[in-house]
């Protein structure tokens, strides 16, 4: 008998072991839901699966009586749009600031302390300020996401640039490159896959800020809907929405990873962090 740390499950076994907790969870939920509904058919806490299907059917496949929109898709579109713009702007700022700070010592000396200070401000604490300054519209939600994740991304990018071996920068100079050419051909292409990796890491925080902003001031969006129906204890809407958000987060992460693998094969083959 091998020691426990040396025993590896075979592929099918690993697959089964991986799905088992999910199946158990579903069964556990069904049992608990049945028990409660038997006691009180109007119980709202743990609705039966049929209620989820009804709720999704109502929200996703029938136009809303009030606005004529398909609420589920409208919420999804609004949220994804805010997320994409917020994260996109953050990534762009991070790329520009991180690369220029990382390569030009004078810029770094001037900007680094400020960026560190900004990154220490708790974004949720200045949400009221954003609402006052930018109003309750789209801008303040996007700005909250940007404020929430940009400092992390900038600092990470700067760090990644500084990690490029100095030999490479020296080599480029002996090949006749000026500062701009080094940034363009040596630094930028090498930090792009690292930017994708940090964006993937920061997406969790981006969702957090998005849902928080939508919960507080919005008229649509996934976060808005969840907090709206909470008043009626509508678990039949909340739980499918949470699952949907989880699935969206998973798909976005997966797509970013595929994009990185496709565009930057050299990165994933040589660094363990990239694979």
């Amino acid at each position: 008998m091998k020691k426990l740390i040396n025993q590896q499950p075979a592929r099918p076994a690993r697959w089964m072991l991986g799905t088992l907790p999910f199946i158990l969870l579903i069964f556990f939920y069904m049992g608990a839901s049945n028990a409660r509904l038997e006691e009180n058919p109007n119980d709202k806490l743990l609705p039966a699966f049929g209620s989820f299907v009804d709720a999704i059917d109502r929200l996703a496949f029938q136009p809303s009586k009030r606005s004529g929109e398909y609420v589920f898709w409208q919420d999804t579109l609004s949220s994804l749009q805010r997320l994409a713009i917020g994260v996109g702007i953050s990534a762009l700022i991070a790329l520009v600031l991180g690369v220029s700070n990382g390569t030009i010592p004078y810029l770094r000396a001037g900007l680094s302390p400020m960026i560190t200070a900004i990154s220490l401000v708790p974004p949720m604490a200045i949400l009221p300020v954003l609402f006052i300054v930018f109003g309750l519209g789209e801008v303040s939600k996007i700005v909250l996401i940007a404020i929430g994740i940009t400092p992390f991304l900038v600092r990470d990018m700067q760090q990644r640039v500084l990690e490029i071996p100095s030999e490479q920068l020296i080599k480029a100079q002996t090949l006749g490159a000026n500062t701009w050419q080094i940034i363009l051909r040596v630094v930028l292409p090498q930090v792009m896959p690292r930017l994708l990796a940090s964006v993937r890491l920061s997406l969790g925080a981006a969702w957090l800020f998005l849902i928080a902003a939508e919960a507080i001031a919005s008229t649509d969006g996934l976060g808005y809907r969840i907090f709206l129906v909470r008043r009626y204890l509508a678990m039949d809407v909340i739980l499918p929405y949470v699952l949907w958000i989880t699935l969206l987060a998973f798909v976005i992460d997966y797509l970013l990873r595929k994009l990185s693998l496709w565009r930057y094969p050299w990165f994933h083959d040589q660094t363990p962090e990239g694979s």
Partner: protein
Amino acid sequence: MSYITINNVWKEYGDQVVLERINNRVEQGDVITIVGASGCGKTTFLKMLLGTEAPSRGDICIEGEPLRYEPDSQRGIVFQRYSVFPHLTVLQNVLLSREFEASPLLARLFAGRRQKAREEAQEMIDAVGLGAALDKYPHELSGGMQQRLAIAQALIKKPRILLLDEPFGALDPGIRADMHQLVLKLWREYRLTIFMITHDLKEGFYLGTRLWVFDKVRVDPQAPGAFGARITYDMPVGSIDASAGNKIHQALAEPPVTEQPAITE
């Protein structure tokens, strides 16, 4: 006037004197191989020639002009590692200097000009025996192939001075012999002036026209950093006889060999 003159160069890091009173002259086409105990300042010396470190005292002149302490295209370098760009293929790595040269803003070449540069790059890649690996990334190459790529990349820029810091240290003996032939061939073709650090004395004898030994002349046991290394031997490789060879071995604190060192050229 000599091609390169080194005038009373010192290098200190804080209290530690690494190099002291380095004086020498080098002619165009010399191949200087540099040996010395680990940590005695060989790389530091090469960095001063490269321009990434400035001497604490003294100066280095090339054709009478004081050296600029910033790397430029006059001096090519091959480091022990990290010498090639991991995000570029073999061809792109070698093309890069042409693109820097021809396109200040985009650093890229297109169409006809790219084709011309590509032919030239291909020639250089063939010369180092990487013709079959044009579109491979560095991580797909062995250590020896990466060093050959680094040499091709440095040489296409036609630097007048080529600096090599233990470039073949990590390679197998067979591949090393190939690399030696390559360096000698390119040296003859381009009339380069080469400085090469090696920890392999045989390699030093074989490749060099001159061999320099870096060593501390004075040592203060109470303060190991008080004195720096100097060039204790500087001789044309052809003139090294057995007794000089033994002295060099002693300086390197290696067991002396009795055989006559191999002599080239």
